[in-house]
């Protein structure tokens, strides 16, 4: 775009961000402060992810942007358009075709590869903030691996509700060292982070933090021996493609309690339907 550098940020800034990224990769799960810039999109709308993407993006990259698992949600459209405009890179909705995937709130169902990078938008990088609001204090807790507070919280959940009541942004321990927020992905997606072949980068623009998980790194969702971590998903197959192993969105179809469950990952659903899989609602649709 005229008047702006490739992918919006100037090269000095990208270099600064890449230095932070290198540090983040070297210390998996550790939050690295960085000189987050003011972006032309609002804070909380993916400015961290955008800065990370801008810093790793090259002219040959193919970019996919999703929000809630979908390529066509408004903010995903807006960010994809931002990079199409400022970097002129090729974009795609197909997970397997993308070299860089920026995401908000989901990890694609398609298993990622070593030659891919996934960039998470992070609203609140500090996993302990609900328990201890002072970042001065939480920084100290991280340096000492003092995560007792979080274990007590999980224990209290079990004592009170019989189970851990966190359903998204479920805390993980990275490389057996740092407690980390996986960003507000559903707990369903947590296991995908463990030993993922792709590089995982996390950008929090407003909070000015970057963190990372290198490929093939252990990521463990916190739990107890007698209360192992388990994921939650709607007990239905996808209404459109019949998938039973994907994360489902619940669509309200009428005001009489009608519900339809469909894949949140729109690409995954489309690929399956192209391959001939049909769900119960898909059949009804075809019949109509």
């Amino acid at each position: 775009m005229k008047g702006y550098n490739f992918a919006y940020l100037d090269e000095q800034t990208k270099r600064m961000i890449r230095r932070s990224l290198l540090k983040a990769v070297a210390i998996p799960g550790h939050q690295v402060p960085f000189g987050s810039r003011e972006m032309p999109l609002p804070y909380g709308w993916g400015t961290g992810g955008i800065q990370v993407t801008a810093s790793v993006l090259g002219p040959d990259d193919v970019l996919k942007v999703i929000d809630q698992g979908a390529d066509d949600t408004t903010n995903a459209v807006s960010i994809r358009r931002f990079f199409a405009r400022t970097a002129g890179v090729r974009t795609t909705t197909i997970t397997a075709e993308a070299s860089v995937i920026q995401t908000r709130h989901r990890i694609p169902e398609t298993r990622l590869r070593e030659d891919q990078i996934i960039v998470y938008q992070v609203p609140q990088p500090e996993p302990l903030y609900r328990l201890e609001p002072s970042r001065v204090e939480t920084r100290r807790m991280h340096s000492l691996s003092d995560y007792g507070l979080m274990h007590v919280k999980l224990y209290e959940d079990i004592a009170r509700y019989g189970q851990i009541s966190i359903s998204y942004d479920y805390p993980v321990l990275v490389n057996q060292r740092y407690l980390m927020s996986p960003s507000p992905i559903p707990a369903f997606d947590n296991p995908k982070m463990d030993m993922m072949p792709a590089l995982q980068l996390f950008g929090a623009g407003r909070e000015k933090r970057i963190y990372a998980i290198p490929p093939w790194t252990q990521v463990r969702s916190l739990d107890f021996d007698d209360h192992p971590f388990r994921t939650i998903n709607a007990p239905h197959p996808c209404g459109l493609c019949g998938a039973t192993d994907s994360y489902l969105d619940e669509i309200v179809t009428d005001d009489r309690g009608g519900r339809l469950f469909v894949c949140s990952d729109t690409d995954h659903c489309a690929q399956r339907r192209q391959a001939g899989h049909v769900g119960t609602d898909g059949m009804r649709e075809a019949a109509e």
Partner: protein
Amino acid sequence: MAYVAVKGGERAISNAHAWLAQERRGDSTVPDLTLAQIANQLGRSVDRAMGEGSLYDRELAALAVKQAQGDLIEAAFLLRAYRTTLPRFAHSHPVDTEAMLIERRVSAVFKDLPGGQILGPTPDYTHRLLDFGLADGVAIPDCATANPDEAAMPRVTDILRQEGLIETDGSSGAPPGDLTREPLSFPAKRDVRLQALARGDEGFLLGLGYSTQRGYGGSHPFAGEIRMGEVSVEIEPAELGFSIDIADIVVTECQMVNQFKGSKSVPPQFTRGYGLVFGFAERKAMAMALVDRAMRAEELGEDVTAPAQNVEFVLYHSDNVEATGFVEHLKLPHYVDFQSELQNVRRMREEAARTRPCAEAAE
């Protein structure tokens, strides 16, 4: 009803932008606002956008106000997003407010002082009666002009300092921090705190400053001096070796003078809270000075009990561009998380029903 996946976000966004542009323009039979009109006649709006946008440029600020339809936080956001792309080629010297070309200068602690009290173009003593004449464009009264005392307009704090009654300016000698390049870290030094306050939201700082006056971290403030006028901005390019004047900007400065009972190492004296803001922005400068002083509680050995004294709390929440982005991001889709919460609540209700059948049966 057959379910059709929500598509067409791209077209919807384009259409929304077009509608916004029409909405901004409004009735086309009404003349379009010019930037000169905004810069001249909505000066306080332009000042606020420049201050919170951290960019001194009246014309760009007027454009931002126009583009934002008068929404000043949005205007500050537009300015910041533009500012971040500008190359940085020099750091200025600190501006010398003693050498200010004064338009207004008042002190609440001395009845008269060298240089005198100069009210300037203040709305302070206007009666807040809607002036219906203004709606019809009445003639503007002539205004008296005087030659201000060319000689001396010493700052009140300097007058107090001659007697040793007030703390001196601290100077670390280190280059000042810059929040727009380096993330906030703690303990945050005063240079960074003042930068954050100068960029901070006027309403937020006003509320915090007000809270210190109502007992939440009070520090017995007096408005030692408020001055507003033009100061020159100087830089010293390395290849020149001497300073050159690159701009004249209007700023408002407020020095609050606060009581301090002394400590083991320091005799009783007055302490200071400092406010400096782009443009004519007296309310903001005063609030800033109150909050600056409140945040010095720990340094001065006072109890830290109130929100305004909590440096981390104030600095992390005073930036309205950060705040508005994060508050408003709640309108982005969250249905993946909400879905997991739905399943979670259903599961927890099942669990509750299973473990408390007796209670329900008894109801």
